[in-house]
């Protein structure tokens, strides 16, 4: 009986040895900390299981108004590389501050982007919501790939191979969005959301022609307290006029922002609420919008179903 047990134990040890080795390797994995859920998703698509990727923002959190916690400081202290969107998406540059205070390297994923300039409050501001077109998302992916290659040169082949696959998925996503949007007659392509997050999307897919193909929203480019951010009575009046003049079939709330303003707008204009769009953050784990591609897909489906005749 004892001999039988010894054979079983020997075989079990032989079988478990690779798993133990893998676990030991995992303990040595570099850590990448991203400010937003979108950037974390891009990094995961490229890194695979070779790196540990963490996101400071939880699904549904607002990057404009986010206040870092002591837990965030601990997460960044354990990072080998930090990634931020930049263009002041992270209100008061909280990610840059966290990385600087912890002495960590910071990569800005919108580097080399030609940003959309939005005129607001007498100033011209670079719109930070660039991920809303797959083409810009491709730039994010390229910048992240370069950052990961510098962090872990031995993994460069893997990162580039995964990035190439993901970039082609983004290409297909772009083509699919064009095909879906084509179901909405041009005169019904009116996109009204809570805040000015959808400028890149509107410009790329030809929404809001009467607003220079930029988004229509009661709240400015940020929900924070920056110049041109927040809601003003003048802005509210302009949005009401735009909705009435354009005959918007529906207006949309966003997952990261209190829906109060949009509900008020809906009451005031008599336009129905089409549903909830993912904007500055992706969906929670297990939801259809838990990845970038899923988030874009669900947004487009909701927009198309709400606006088509």
């Amino acid at each position, binding site marked *: 009986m004892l001999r*039988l047990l010894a054979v079983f134990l020997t075989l079990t040890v032989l079988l478990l040895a690779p798993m133990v080795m893998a676990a030991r390797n995992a303990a040595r994995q570099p850590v990448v900390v991203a400010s937003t859920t979108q950037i974390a998703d891009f990094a995961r698509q490229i890194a695979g299981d070779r790196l540990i990727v963490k996101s400071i923002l939880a699904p549904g959190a607002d990057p404009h108004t986010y206040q870092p916690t002591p837990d965030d400081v601990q997460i960044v202290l354990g990072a080998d590389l930090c990634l931020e969107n930049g263009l002041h998406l992270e209100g008061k540059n909280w990610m840059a501050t966290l990385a600087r205070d912890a002495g960590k390297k910071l990569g800005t994923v919108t580097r080399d982007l030609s940003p959309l300039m939005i005129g607001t409050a007498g100033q011209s501001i670079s719109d930070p919501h660039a991920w809303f077109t797959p*083409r810009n998302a491709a730039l994010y992916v390229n910048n992240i790939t370069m950052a990961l290659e510098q962090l872990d040169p031995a993994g460069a082949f893997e990162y*580039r191979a995964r990035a190439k696959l993901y970039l082609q998925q983004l290409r297909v996503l772009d083509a699919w969005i064009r095909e879906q949007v084509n179901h909405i007659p041009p005169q019904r392509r009116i996109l009204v959301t809570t805040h000015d997050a959808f400028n890149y999307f509107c410009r790329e897919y030809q929404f809001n022609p009467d607003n220079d193909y930029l988004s229509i929203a009661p709240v400015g480019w940020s929900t924070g307290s920056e110049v041109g951010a927040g809601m003003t009575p003048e802005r509210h009046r302009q949005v009401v006029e735009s909705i009435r003049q354009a005959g918007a079939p529906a207006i949309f709330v966003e997952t990261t922002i209190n829906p109060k303003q949009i509900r008020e707008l809906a009451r005031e204009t008599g336009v129905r609420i089409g549903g909830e769009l993912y904007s500055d953050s992706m969906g929670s784990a297990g939801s259809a919008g838990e990845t970038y591609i899923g988030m874009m897909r669900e947004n487009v489906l909701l927009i198309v179903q709400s606006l088509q005749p």
Partner: protein
Amino acid sequence: MRIALTALIWLIMIGGLSLYIHQRDQRLPPAIQILTTEAASMVDYTLEITPTFSPEPDPFALHGDPSASATLVVRVGERELFRSEQALPAGKTVSVHPVAGLVVGRNELYLWATPPLSEALMDHAVRVRLLQGNQEVFDETLWGLSGAKVAGTIAFILERSAEAEHDH
């Protein structure tokens, strides 16, 4: 006796699993079998490529990749047989001659081309013909659906014919 039986069952289980994994990885896609002669040297081959669209550089290419600026690429194994970095006219046939790198035995042509983003709602195709002199070796069409890159592998085997064996 029990120990031997336990070890035997364990060996059968693990061995069976290993055998299955090994055989699964050995499977290769079916190839087009073509007979050719040794006398017909590789320089007798001509490759004709006809895209139904005007290939252009891919805005979704990985920066720094050697193929980032290419519009159409054909490879035989690791050898690049043809590369265009210009927008080719739709429907125009590009001839590649000679087709270097072909071997007697199994060959694979890998081709990709990037349709314009402005035609994202359309399906695209590239017709690929391999000719030995005037004789057609294969005629295949690769497809890319709804704006996706057209990419595919054409596998074929070039064998020595009995006549060629006899000549030697």
